[in-house]
């Protein structure tokens, strides 16, 4: 019994993580992430008079938001994010299946995975600015189309348009879609694919009834890593939209530039609500499906 009391004083949680460490991490998390967010929410319910915050709760900022035509910006942002996400899906699913199951060659896999990470070495702006030269009036695409005789005039909607923004977003958001999908497909046992074939299934049937349902968690993660950050990304739309394609993130920036802090805060809270809402819906949908297939 004497030893028992000794054991109690030296209690270590079953996970082997000290409670002190956990509270330290939680404290830092609160300080760095949650507190500024709460500040943001607080500001969105205040108003500015003569560039001074007035400390009484009001919905003025949200009213301004509604009346200032930012719905259009919201719809455009969501539309661009949705289109790019769909394009990423169409490209990434076959690519991930090929990389995980289609090729047995280890060098091919290593080189491909490395090639997918290399873009991260360069800043997003540097990678994006290249598209200006490619899509511009005198760029290679317009020259090629003209020399082929397909068009007489250079296409002016190639650059500084929603089209340009979509093209520019495809590259940077491809790896975050591919990686979780690749991992999910890798986890599908070869024996399952052999069994499906053995039972008479065509590759398309196997894809639809085995690969896709089992890769669903990867699909969900890929969606979260592409669609949601794209809503908050101002870089590509600004560089390739040329002021024509205003998205929510740039809207926040321009509000900040005119020192309209409360409306900027309200818009940020609004964006945050969209993202959290989407993530929550996705989590609920996936959880239902994943639970059924968990082992």
């Amino acid at each position, binding site marked *: 019994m004497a030893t028992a009391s000794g054991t109690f004083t030296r209690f270590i949680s079953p996970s082997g993580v000290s409670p002190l460490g956990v509270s330290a991490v939680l404290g830092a998390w609160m300080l760095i992430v949650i507190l500024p967010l709460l500040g943001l929410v607080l500001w969105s319910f205040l108003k500015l008079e003569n560039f001074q915050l007035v400390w009484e709760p009001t919905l003025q900022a949200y009213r301004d938001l509604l009346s200032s035509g930012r719905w259009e910006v919201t719809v455009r942002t969501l539309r661009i994010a949705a289109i790019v996400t769909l394009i990423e899906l169409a490209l990434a699913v076959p690519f991930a299946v090929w990389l995980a199951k289609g090729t047995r060659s280890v060098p091919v896999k290593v080189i491909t995975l490395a090639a997918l990470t290399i873009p991260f070495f360069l800043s997003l702006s540097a990678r994006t600015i290249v598209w200006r030269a490619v899509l511009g009036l005198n760029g290679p695409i317009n020259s090629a189309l003209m020399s082929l005789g397909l068009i007489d005039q250079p296409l002016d909607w190639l650059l500084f348009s929603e089209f340009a923004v979509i093209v520019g977003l495809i590259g940077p958001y491809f790896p975050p879609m591919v990686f979780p999908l690749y991992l999910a497909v890798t986890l599908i046992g070869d024996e399952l694919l052999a*069994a499906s074939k*053995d039972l*008479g299934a065509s590759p398309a049937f196997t894809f639809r009834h085995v690969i896709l349902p089992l890769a669903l968690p990867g699909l969900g993660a890929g969606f979260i890593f592409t669609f949601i950050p794209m809503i908050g990304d101002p870089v590509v739309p600004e560089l390739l939209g040329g002021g024509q394609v205003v998205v929510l993130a740039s809207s926040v920036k321009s509000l900040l530039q005119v020192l309209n802090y409360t409306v900027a805060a309200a818009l940020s809270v609004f964006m945050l609500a969209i993202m959290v809402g989407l993530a929550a819906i996705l989590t609920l949908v996936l959880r239902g499906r994943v639970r059924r297939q968990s082992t």
Partner: protein
Amino acid sequence: MTETSERPAPASEDILAIDHLHHRYGNVTALKDVSLKVRRGEFLTLLGSSGSGKSTLLRMIAGLEMPTSVDVFTLEGRPMAQVPANHRNVSTVFQHYGLFPHLSVGQNVEYGLHVRKIPVPERRRQAEEMLRLVKLDGMYDRPIHALSGGQRQRVALARSLVLKPAILLLDEPLGALDEKLRLEMQIELLSLHRTLGMTFIYVTHSQEEALTMSHRILLMSNGEIVQEGRPEDLFDRPSNRFAAEFMGMENIFTAEITAIDGGVISVTVNGAHLRGLWTGKTQPRIGDPIAVAFRSEKVKLARDKGALGGDANRFEATLKSRVYKGKYLDVVAASALGDVRLRLWDDHVVLSDQFKIEWRPTNTVVIPID
């Protein structure tokens, strides 16, 4: 052995014929000049250690891999060499079952019927019937992860059987089960085979499984068929050194031929004379490199004049070690041949340090060293 004799003999018609099949992975030869014929209704076992090519051969028959070259490859009389798995009327029970974790038991069993666009109610009816056959009645809606290993095994069986394949291929299906369950499943597989009259090709590394279950065994090593025959043939008459070792002949000695008298061969081992039966494929000649082999349980203690008759192989022996195993006694004895292993089943055996051992020439095989 009684199991085998009770079963109906397979028909004389060949359901599968393969001639001169070769397979290479890059520079590695996986299968070398494999030829086999399988009769309708037969229970054929591919026996061999890991890397012997038995699973590769099964995957070839399933169509999951295509042979590098083959002269004849017919299933039910139709050429199959280049037909992929999803167009072959065979079905595989995989080693780890390959069950779809996101589908229920019933949906797993129905998978092949779903592929074949069978209407839902009919699918369900057939699946339920198959689940009854493998004793999983009422498990239709269970998720796979809620099943035990033995139950998963049965689902995999039902999933293949429901398609009524010409041949059911089984790739070490009992490997993942514990001893008791394995014996139960052996009996159940045999009874399924009897009920359905289907052709089974069974891959295993266990000689015990092969002996209990098969009509015929193909023993494989290094991508080749080393010996083929009934369980009795392989057990009692291994035709080469590898087969003798694999089938558990504990006493194998390199020997020299001194005389050939029909099937009976006289040999010397370290100057000691003994006789045995030739089991090799080609007739031996004096001077060929050969070995002599016999089972430890066939070696008896010779009392006085010897009980096995005048022509028995009989030697003086000195006790080296004895291990009590409950049912029997394992003894190693030094003799003129070298160390001989005996397995004595007599409860009341009293061993002195010096004794005589004997065994019949008909229980002794003379085999080529390849």
